[in-house]
């Protein structure tokens, strides 16, 4: 009987404690600065064009084979780029959010965004095209793969009002 009473005592104690659960859709847990949500493509605001040059390294390094991209010749003159990405698709239904594509990118053209609420009624809608990937990475700074990235504040990641 002693053990059962001890359990009840613990239950009463825990009853008086502040709850640890949150009412999720209304009350959100703060995201950590490094949180890796859906991968997105970075946009270079200085020259107002996409950073990606379609080198295909991310697609070949992806463990889930969920990236598909094509490039085309480019001579826009704003940068020294010879190629630019034409189509870029990520099937987020297959993506495992491991961040390898971001790490291997030699041009710092993508970043893991803080977006994680991606549920849809249709699997086809999880295949994100170039425009949507640029959209979800807007305001996100490149941080992964940099040796001193630990203390860099990440724009947009900590403030839920900045997401969509």
């Amino acid at each position: 009987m002693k053990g059962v009473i001890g359990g009840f005592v613990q239950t009463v104690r825990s009853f008086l404690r502040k709850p640890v659960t949150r009412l999720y859709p209304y009350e959100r847990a703060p995201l950590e600065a490094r949180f890796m949500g859906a991968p997105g493509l970075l946009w270079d605001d200085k020259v107002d064009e996409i950073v990606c040059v379609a080198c295909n390294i991310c697609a070949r390094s992806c463990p889930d084979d969920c990236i598909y991209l094509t490039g085309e010749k480019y001579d826009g003159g704003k940068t020294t780029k010879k190629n630019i990405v034409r189509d870029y698709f990520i099937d987020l239904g297959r993506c495992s959010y491991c961040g390898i594509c971001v790490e291997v990118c030699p041009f710092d053209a993508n970043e893991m965004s803080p977006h994680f609420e991606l549920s849809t009624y249709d699997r086809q809608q999880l295949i994100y095209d170039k425009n949507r990937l640029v959209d979800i990475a807007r305001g996100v700074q490149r941080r992964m793969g940099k040796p001193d990235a630990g203390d860099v504040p990440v724009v947009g990641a900590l403030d839920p009002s900045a997401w969509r």
Partner: protein
Amino acid sequence: MAIDISDPSIDTLAPTESQIVEERNLETVEMTINMGPQHPSTHGVFRMVLALAGERVQQVEPFIGYLHRGAEKLGEAGDVEGYRKAVIWLDRTDYLSVWPNEHCYMLCLEKLAGLQVPERAEYIRVILSELGRINSHAMFYGAFGADAGATTPFMYAFALREELYSLFEAVGGQRMFPNYFRPGGLREDVPADFVARVGHVVDTGYRACDEFDRLLSGNEIFLARTQGIGVVSAERAIDLGLSGPVLRAAGMPLDVRRVEPYSLYDRFDFDVPVGTRGDCYERYLIRLQEIRQSLGIVEQAIRDLPAGPIMGNAPKALRPPKGDAYQRIENARGDFGVYIVSDGRSAAPYRVKYRSPCFVNLQGLNDMVVGAYVADAVLALGSIDIVLGEVDR
């Protein structure tokens, strides 16, 4: 309809001597029932076919493979960054003790490629591996309580696990599958407030352990359900190749961290909890004790954490020389091993093999279950603490 408690025939819930005799004399037909793969107490998609005589299990036949994804074969598949891709699939086999398994893979790969790891990186790996072990044992506590019919422990376990997962998210960016260790070091340094946060988690962990004990460990109903159930002797456990808490509960003090120290485990002071009877209750107690020991290791590692680089001399595109390497570690479930064969040319392993402790520990199920009641079979299975993702790989 309310039950009349003044009725003398239902004065006690336990069967009286006469009732037991009556049961023995009852003529029953042997019956085969199927349990799983969707049964909630089979911890995933495990299926067993039980041959019953009345309530007693005569024979048990396990069926596995419902969660087979070919993680080892996929580990060989990548042509670019293949060594990195294999970790992604390894993480998803044993989804509860991800950190120790990643640690093992990296140690094996470093052994194969001859890489040096900076001390700071190795300390951080040990801290995270031990926190991963605590995470897994906390999950066991919750699930085992649920197996025994107590749903409240689940909530207590998840309160502690939420703290741990928040820390993992701050360190690796992901809550469950961090993909944070790299051959030769770590992906990036830990956040600036890492030491303070780990200290907070350790305090929470000790407090949670005391709560776990108060809530369930002394509960008489829980004791009656678990003591003397699912016994495996030390000799039998060694014969079957069991490892981890299942073996140590039987009285065999075998812990890879102690008998074959890898990483920095020869520097830390910790005990290996050992049982005597080898029943479900001792397996439960040993895991709770191991949480405390792991917290002690984390405390020591945090105290000694040196400054310095977090990445060694690893080349960008890793191509280990031709050969093979095997590394065993103690993960939350037992003796986990990674075997990598390199052909010396490609950027992906020629062969990856994981020695899964869950799969081997499952062989003890027959000894634990035969002769017991069906309800005890559920507890015996729970006390092995299987993760089906690792059994089926």
